[in-house]
């Protein structure tokens, strides 16, 4: 009972804390927590600097999303996606993982991808577009791989068929 109350309170707080950004559509209530990011972030600011800070991450995510939503192999997956929300939480998540002082306010990977029908091939196509975007941002290959090492285990939660 106490747990339920705590969760309800957290949900209320979460909803109150998230301003209704212009284009974002509401999602089912969930408990906000950095644990939803699914990985332990890097310590220190070395990794975030390697990605040219939150602005660098922002450019990378924008390019990656532009690519996966126009790639004929993956664009259908995003047909019903609230792109404004995805763009925001993805940037938060990556900055958080890279050691930035932000909170991740999105859902956990399993919940977020439950109905997306993502196959391993789709996961890899997204990784390839992410790699291209990181190349264009001139992120060193070894730093790219260090981030990918954090993202790779998400395959288990993201790939559902």
């Amino acid at each position, binding site marked *: 009972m106490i747990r339920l109350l705590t969760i309800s309170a957290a949900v209320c707080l979460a909803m109150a804390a998230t301003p209704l950004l212009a284009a974002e559509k509401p999602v089912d209530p969930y408990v906000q927590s950095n644990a939803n990011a699914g*990985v332990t972030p890097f310590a220190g600011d070395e990794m975030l600097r390697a990605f040219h800070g939150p602005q660098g991450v922002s450019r990378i995510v924008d390019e990656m999303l532009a690519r996966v939503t126009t790639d004929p192999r993956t664009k259908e997956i995003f047909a019903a996606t609230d792109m404004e929300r995805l763009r925001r939480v993805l940037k938060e998540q990556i900055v958080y993982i890279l050691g930035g002082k932000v909170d991740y306010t999105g859902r956990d990977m399993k919940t977020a991808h439950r109905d997306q029908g993502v196959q391993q*091939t789709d996961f*890899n196509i997204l990784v390839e577009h992410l790699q291209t975007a990181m190349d264009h941002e001139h992120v060193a290959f070894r730093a790219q791989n260090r981030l990918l090492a954090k993202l790779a285990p998400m*395959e288990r939660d993201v790939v559902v068929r």
Partner: protein
Amino acid sequence: MRGFRAAAGVAAALAAYAAHADGQELRPSGKLLLTGGVSDVEGAGGGGLATWATITGYETRDGIGANLHGTMVDLPDYRFTAFGGAVGFLDRIEISYARQAFDTGDTGAKLGIGKGFTFHQDVFGAKLRVAGDAVYGQDRWLPQVAVGAQFKKADRGALVKALGAKDDQGVDWYVAATKVLLDQSLVLDGTIRATKANQTGLLGFGGPKNDGYQAQFEGSAALLLTRRLAVGVEYRTKPDNLGLKEDDWMDVFAAYAVNKTLSVTAGYADLGEIATFGGQRGLYLSVQAGF
């Protein structure tokens, strides 16, 4: 040969059935660049001299991948070539074939077997991935593990038996463990092979010094430099059943993926002493084409 075809057919049917039973959409070439490994000297997915736990081809668990390869090692006194093909099913099962040729060239005359005398060997391989995932399992110590068998048949039975080999055909059994350490941009493989093969089978199996299975090690360590390029070193131990001072093999290599259709591996291999001729070092070159 008939048995091999039947086994391959059964495996293909099972793979297709498993995929459709799940309502999966079959999709080719979904794997990330170079993550299927290249084709090794025995035709299996691996490095150059070492067989890895990776399943060949660019298929994911939702598809079938296949490739053809040609490999050459140009040695001072011999030339080794191999051609073959392999199919990977659902990133789970690998079936491979390679025909190796070991051309003695002018050395054949010195050995008294005739100039240009060439040993051949057919290698039929099957590999089953049993645990782990080399790429996605970045949060676990468990590597990708595969078990496999290679049936080998040498064509110069009378000669290899005259050299002391007990048989001109044999089966190697192996367990391979491969891990991509993305955090370090490294690929590591360690494989234990139970074998009786002399010079991997080209000189037959077993001999006067030993005729039983012995556990041998083969391994690779490679550094990922770009998405397309990996450079590495390999080592492979071998038994000395014939008492001909058979040496371990080693190489340094660079594997370059032009795209998912074509990759080239170039290296420098040290194959040590082969049939009394020492210092067999030279260029290793392999081309793989597939999907």
